[in-house]
């Protein structure tokens, strides 16, 4: 995907920004509840530091998903402070499925455009 983006002349961060909510939903679906900082670190680990989520974009995305009913929040007292954990709702799970299907379709179409298979 990285290469395709380069070809398209888009910066990776631009495209990922649009996909941030999918990344969040998918992570929560697989890992269960997480807090903001944990999400940034997990993404960094998974992409070997290639992709870092901007803090200024992460929280807006989390709050938007929460307002839409895709996430729920719980709070726990950890050390000497309060930590907010996000978890995915059934509605959010459905949304993940839909959005991943969309993304798959998008990638498949990009493949077709960039790598047309010649058939005779």
């Amino acid at each position, binding site marked *: 995907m990285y290469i395709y983006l380069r070809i398209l002349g888009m910066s990776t961060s631009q495209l990922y920004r649009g996909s941030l909510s999918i990344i969040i939903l998918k992570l929560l679906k697989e890992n269960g509840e997480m807090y903001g900082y944990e999400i940034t670190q997990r993404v960094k680990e998974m992409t070997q530091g290639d992709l870092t989520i*901007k803090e200024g974009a992460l929280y807006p995305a989390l709050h938007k998903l929460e307002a839409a009913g895709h996430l729920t929040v719980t709070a726990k007292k950890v050390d*000497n402070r309060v930590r907010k954990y996000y978890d995915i709702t059934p509605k959010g799970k459905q949304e993940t499925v839909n959005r991943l299907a969309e993304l798959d379709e998008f990638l498949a179409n990009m493949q077709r455009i960039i790598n047309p298979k010649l058939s005779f």
Partner: protein
Amino acid sequence: MKVNESQIAELYAFTRKHYVEHYDLQTELVDHLAMAIEKQWAKNEHISFDKALQIEFKKFGVFGFMEVVEERQKALSKKYSKLIWKHLKEYFKLPKIILLLILTVVLYYLIELAIVDRLVLTILLALSLLAYVVDAVIHVKRNKAKKNNGEKKWMFEEIIRSYGSGLWLFFVPVQGINILNSTDVEFAVKSPVFIAVFSFVFILLLMVSYIIQFEIPKKAEHYLEETYPEYKLVD
């Protein structure tokens, strides 16, 4: 090395200095910054608290916390509109729909009467104004009581209270009567359908005002706890 109590207080002050007014957002950002600073210390113990904080703050970009605050406001406004819808939908189910229909019918006949008799219209207008004044007094009292209640501000609470004291809402019904009064009364006389639709919309608007001013603020604690699980953890 862990971020200590007084440093947490410093972080709260730091978020306030950078225009994060509301305690809910402050808390989330403070935890984030504290985690990130601890992570830096794990790599390099000698880095100072202030230096580590500056490094982390830079990661939020040139606008600092502004975007986070703005987007939070948007998300919560959306949540609030949804809440109004949820309440309004109740008026289309039993038993509340009976109230809605009865009020519509009553208003319908009142308007019919009013067309015959201007006095009724004047009384209606006077009643609306009276309701407005009473409402204003209630809100001034309520807000005063609220202000003495500590200094932690919760964004959703502010949205509920500020819309809840949206006195302009009561102007909507008053305006409605005005419009009916000054414009096409002839048309209204001829068309019962017009009066019926007008009555229904008018009552619906009244219901929305009622929801915003009374129903939601009354359940504010419940909605706040739902929005802010940390609401109960502090204080």
